[in-house]
């Protein structure tokens, strides 16, 4: 008995409402549906929870306040002085990634962040935004970021290209980290699920591994949102304070 395991089937994008405008395919897909759900969940959490804000918060209000304070604290400690105006952006990024990751863990749902195009768009937004912030704040002085101070001129020939490379690789590492984590985690769950489906009574073993893996995936979902947000903070600090 061989059941065909298709671990990557869960990532297929399906058109729910086909829509074409001037040769462009702008169909409403399952990816778009889950992004909409994520945004709705965040909006509900933040709007409904704080609509009747009490001095002693209830469960929902504490959840909203906890996430707010968590990100506020992260921006405060990691992005340095002068990063307060960017708090809403980082909070939005963090909540969007966190909620999309967690929604993806619901069986039969779709993980938005398991597609590189989504994470790359987010990372590119961060990269371009941070570069513009740096250029606007420091002007041409911003390029000092690529020239380490107190280094002999001969070494600069080597170090400047490395610094440039490590700067321009940022959107790629930032996006691949999130996408690969989500892709690998969900593929692994599907593979162990496939094992369980094909070996009958012994299924208890892969199934128990799967239960543990879901726990790990919950950790990874929160951790990756945290890492994405904290790296955005660190990049922002580089742009604001230039080393």
């Amino acid at each position, binding site marked *: 008995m061989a059941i065909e395991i298709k671990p990557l089937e869960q990532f297929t994008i399906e058109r729910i409402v086909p829509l074409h405008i001037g040769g462009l395919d702008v169909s409403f897909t399952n990816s778009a549906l889950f992004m909409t759900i994520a945004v709705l969940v965040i909006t509900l959490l933040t709007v409904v929870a704080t609509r009747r804000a009490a001095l002693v918060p209830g469960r929902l209000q504490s959840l909203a306040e906890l996430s707010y304070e968590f990100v506020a604290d992260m921006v405060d400690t990691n992005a340095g002085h002068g990063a307060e105006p960017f708090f809403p952006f980082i909070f939005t990024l963090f909540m969007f990634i966190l909620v999309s990751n967690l929604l993806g863990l619901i069986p039969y749902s779709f993980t938005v962040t398991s597609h590189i195009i989504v994470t790359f768009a987010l990372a590119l937004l961060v990269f371009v935004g941070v570069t513009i912030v740096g250029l606007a704040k420091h002007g041409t002085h911003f390029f000092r970021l690529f020239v380490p101070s107190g280094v002999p001129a001969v070494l600069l020939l080597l170090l400047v290209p490395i610094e440039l490379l490590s700067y321009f690789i940022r959107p790629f590492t930032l996006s*691949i*980290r999130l996408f690969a*984590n989500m892709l690998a985690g969900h593929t692994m769950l599907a593979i162990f699920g496939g094992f369980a489906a094909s070996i009958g009574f012994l299924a208890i073993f892969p199934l128990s591994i799967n239960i543990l893996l879901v726990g790990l995936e919950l950790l990874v979902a929160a951790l990756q949102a945290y890492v994405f947000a904290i790296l955005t903070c660190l990049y922002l600090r580089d742009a604001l304070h230039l080393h």
Partner: protein
Amino acid sequence: MDLASAKMIGAGLACIALVGAGVGIGNVFASLIASVARNPAAQPQVQPFAFLGFALAEATGLFGLAIAFLILFVF
């Protein structure tokens, strides 16, 4: 060697990247345990960095896994 078997071998080789991720994650948590055992009061300060380090180390292994998927399913 035909392309199909070369792809399989390549995908397997790409998974060697997980060795580094394993070493890295082990190193991160070993250092966390060592530092907390020496100075338990420092735990709140070092724990966020440990998890950041865990995520960064894990990601490098997943890059290898992404390459394996790329070899298997894209080309």
